[in-house]
């Protein structure tokens, strides 16, 4: 028997599912029931006509567990396809954050200056607050949010990661 590889890897997995009631509960139940990690999970309908949704999940585990996770996802009845974006060639990953910062004077100016450097957009502002919208890789969002912390960070809302493979082929092709 090949020795088990016990190194922990992180993967981004995309799952195309029928958009039927309970499908998200099935996916989440699978992860909790079998003790797999979820670091991020996003879901939204992507094809209303065919009633399909796409789930992006970031998970971690040993190579054997990761293989199990994909096989277990794929055997759920409403699942059309599973793609391991970390393994199957290059991919694009993005996350969006809404960041509310409240403050006056210098801190307020400083937050706007940093937002500008990070190409964050102001989506709401008042005399004492800004809401920034920022899209990018998750680690870039982390840095931005950390910089906002001493400047009066109030609330953060993040979407979790969405991802797609580079090149012309789709998940099912």
């Amino acid at each position, binding site marked *: *028997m*090949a020795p*088990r590889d016990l190194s922990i890897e992180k993967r981004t997995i995309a799952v195309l*599912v*029928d958009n*039927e*009631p*309970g499908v998200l*509960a*099935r996916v989440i*139940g699978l992860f909790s*029931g079998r003790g797999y990690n979820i670091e991020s999970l996003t879901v939204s309908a992507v094809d209303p006509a*065919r*009633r399909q949704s796409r789930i992006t999940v970031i998970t971690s585990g040993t190579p*054997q567990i990761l*293989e*199990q996770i994909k*096989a*277990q996802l*794929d*055997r759920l*009845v*409403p*699942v*059309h396809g599973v793609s391991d974006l970390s393994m199957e060639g290059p991919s694009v990953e993005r996350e969006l954050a809404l960041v509310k910062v409240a403050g006056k004077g210098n801190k307020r100016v400083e937050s706007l200056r940093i937002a500008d450097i990070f190409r964050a957009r102001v989506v709401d502002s008042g005399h004492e607050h800004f809401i920034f919208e920022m899209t990018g890789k998750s680690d870039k969002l982390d840095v931005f949010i950390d910089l906002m912390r001493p400047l009066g960070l109030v609330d953060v809302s993040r979407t979790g990661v969405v991802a797609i493979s580079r090149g012309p082929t789709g998940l099912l092709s």
Partner: protein
Amino acid sequence: MGPGGKRNETMPGKQMTGSQMVLKALCDQGVEVIFGYPGGAVLPLYDALHQQNAVRHILVRHEQAAVHAAEGYARSTGKVGVVLVTSGPGATNAVTGLTDALMDSIPVICLTGQVPTHLIGNDAFQEADTTGITRPCTKHNYLVKNVDDLPRVMHEAFYVAQTGRPGPVVIDLPKDVLQAKSAVYIGPEEVKHPSYRPRTKPDPRAIEKAIEVIAKAKRPIIYSGGGVINSGDKASRLLTRFVRALGAPCTNTLMGLGAYPASDPQFLGMLGMHGTYEANLAMYNCDVLINVGARFDDRVTGRLDEFSPNSYKIHIDIDPSSINKNVVVDLPIVADVGAALDALVKGWTNGGHSLSQRALKAWWKTIETWRERDCLSFKTKSAVIKPQYAIQRLYELTKDRETFITTEVGQHQMWAAQYYKFEQPRHWMTSGGLGTMGYGLPAAYGVQVAHPEALVVDIAGEASIMMNIQELSTLAQYDLPVKIFIINNQWMGMVRQWQELLHGGRYSQSYSASLPDFVKLAEAFGAVGLRASKPEELDDLILEMVDSPRPVVFDCQVDQTENCFPMIPSGAAHYEMLLGPGDKAAKPVSEEGMVLV
């Protein structure tokens, strides 16, 4: 109407209620019998059932039993077993059976009643979140909120339950949906599942590679399991042909018994925790291991890092999640067992392959030395019936009839697996994955309903049988002549055995106290009660049992202290088997082993 189902708009069908549609769909799926129990939420369906004759209903005495009965029916026929229960407690009572069917890959459809759609979520009377509760214990489940979806869901459910790796499917039916009318009934041929298409044909390159590896094997073994039974009788025939063409040894899991004829000299018996010495040592020492429809369960592998350490492993399984789950294999073949075996047999014979006869002879010579240990031998006593002897006699006295065996869970189950020899598939039903005490009696009458002329025996323990004893009443109602052969050792023997081996002989709560008088109990339920306590009376009483046209409860009082051997203690390797009471484990069971079940 959801995806997949097409409606013929120009030719509206006849108006039907949801209940009528359910029954029509059952008929169209070839269902002849269902096992159920009524209640408020399913009254419309029971009313429709009352007004037809195509589908027969067997009234159980507990919903758990309905599911086990459907499992017995399914396993012995290859068809889907169907269950009908009410909402709330009816559905929750069915959960153990559903989990059992999921673990053992048995195709079952369970129709559950539900409160009307407008009350869902209101904590209405007898409301339970049935789809939520059963999500992890079914292959798939549905809540039907619109009567127009009902026919499609019914047919999809049958497709899902029996396609790929079989399993239980729940359809939750709100009462208003059962009463609503619609004209959109569609037949099974009009329903195509939008996403579920399990792979059944093997990759030809994998088959080629397998043949190449097998052809060079010196010490091959075939380890086959429940997947062969699931695949159908043809798969068992192909397995037999393949094993014979190779001339290699074959072992079966508990779930696979009957997939290969037990009397064949190439059969090594069951493997695993209570498997034979020769099967386990052959697994440990083989150089090519061919897993055919088995799932490397922990009862089979023992300590994983010592499991068949030097073999090249080929694994045929229809479910990709079974591959590399417990044991990393060298060559996975994702396919239906039947299709894969067909390709292997053809490739092997057409290619004119054969194993090295010298190596094979040497391999068999080694195996024969293991066989000579005669690990299943036991000492008979004149004063008391040995449980192994009781099963051996039952086998000898029933083997020439069409006999189906079910079991409960415990030592008696293992002895049944060891001493009853199965020549054909589908004649052995046991709860393997979940190990559900209370399975055997309802499963037995599920089998009996499907095979009215056959002899059906539930080999039971005195503790297990108490878990669904109320089902004697079902036997009485339908004149189902099931035989319940209780190996009565006055103990939860399997628990007592572990306490003896692992917990210093502190027999905490494992004595079967205050047992009923089983003979009187039988009579109270309109069955025949028999009792044996001496070896010399056993044969006559067994014959009386099998010749009786009525249900029989047989209280077979056996040696109370007997343990089940061989045994691989938990966390131990295949070569660390205990062969008998005198055998002490080479090393004490490790802490790691102690936490295992």
